[in-house]
């Protein structure tokens, strides 16, 4: 498994510079500018998908030359870190069924895949920056943290395979609806957790993510989660990522010196 993750990290690192270079010149944020100043304090890891730290820049959401929305840049947040329930409307509850509640109650923090340097899956985010790369045929999401990995999203009109092998990020296809990128994903494994609390899912999970850049500095990510194994009905979580102008991704190899998992105690539940 470690070799697999390392290979993934190497692949992402290898892909990133070429694609980033390709996108230079169409990034209105300046996030790709060479020698861009690093951002001031606060640029490390946010505390949750809604985030703290420096304010996002203001201005209209940019578009690519062909009219599609331009999501390029380095972002932070946009998904649950500690608690998936932070993304649902106030007063509502995550519609766990009995099996979901039972599995969640049995989970121990030490078993959280993220604590063991495994991927976040979807829609969980690590408290580290990430970058979106759009091409005519693909969308890539490059993650700095936990783990130094990437998502490959097909935007060339293809369909899902009939019986995809289960994977951490699943099989993703995307299309644009106006200024929104819609990403449909199936083929997940059942291994990752949605948050530190241990919200579960099965390999029947189907997600639909809607990415909308509401202004220059804000990217709303609404994810509909459909998994009849552990939830009574589909539900949608909403998180907002913030642009980190001038920021670049840094190397983050979680397996390098992971010492925490053997000291972690108790049931999952507290961030």
């Amino acid at each position, binding site marked *: 498994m470690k070799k697999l993750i390392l290979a993934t990290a190497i692949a992402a690192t290898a892909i990133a510079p070429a694609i980033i270079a390709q996108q230079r010149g169409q990034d209105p944020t300046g996030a790709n500018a060479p020698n861009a100043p690093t951002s001031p304090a606060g640029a490390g890891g946010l*505390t949750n998908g809604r985030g703290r730290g420096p304010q996002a820049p203001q201005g209209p959401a940019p578009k690519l030359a062909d009219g599609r929305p331009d999501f390029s840049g380095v972002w932070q947040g946009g998904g649950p870190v500690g608690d998936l329930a932070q993304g649902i409307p106030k007063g509502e509850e995550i519609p766990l069924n009995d099996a979901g509640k039972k599995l969640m109650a049995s989970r121990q923090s030490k078993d959280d895949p993220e604590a063991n340097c495994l991927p976040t899956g979807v829609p969980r985010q690590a408290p580290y920056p990430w970058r979106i790369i759009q091409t005519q045929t693909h969308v890539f999401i490059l993650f700095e943290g936990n783990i130094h990995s990437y998502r490959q999203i097909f935007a060339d009109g293809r369909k899902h395979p009939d019986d995809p092998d289960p994977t951490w990020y699943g099989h993703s296809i995307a299309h644009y609806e106006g200024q929104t990128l819609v990403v449909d994903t199936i083929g997940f494994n059942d291994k990752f957790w949605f948050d530190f609390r241990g919200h579960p899912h099965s390999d029947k999970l189907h997600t639909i993510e809607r990415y909308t850049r509401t202004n220059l500095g804000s990217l709303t990510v609404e994810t509909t989660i459909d998994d009849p194994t552990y939830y009574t009905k589909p539900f949608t979580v909403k998180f907002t990522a913030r642009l980190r102008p001038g920021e670049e991704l840094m190397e983050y190899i979680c397996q390098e010196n992971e010492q925490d998992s053997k000291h972690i105690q108790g049931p999952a539940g507290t961030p």
Partner: protein
Amino acid sequence: MRALSAFASAVLLTAAVVPVAAHHSFAAEYDANKPVTLHGSVVRVDWTNPHARFYIEVKEADGSVAQWNLELASPNVLVRQGWTRNSLKIGDEITVSGSAAKDGSKMANARNVTLASGKRVFAGSPAGDPGAAPEAK
């Protein structure tokens, strides 16, 4: 000085809020109600992910020397806050306060690290709190 004290208070208040800018649940590993303050000499610095760490040798009451493992935020967080891999050096005499590991290991999450000169390093970055700025480099 007043500003410095205010800043220190702010950091302490911030530290009371559970920091989650890590790859694991803070509360599952450290006990915020188990504060620890240690004095010792730095014998090792790991500028590594997922957390930077440093090790200090602390003289115990019985005269023996114990080694403590202190966890910081990730190097990525620390670098973005202006700290470097040279901010703390082997041989530095320091005082560190933080939260001890729940399992009783000689391990803690470092909240405040103060050099013998009085200079504080890694301020504002306990487990990666991104809200505060470093007061010194």
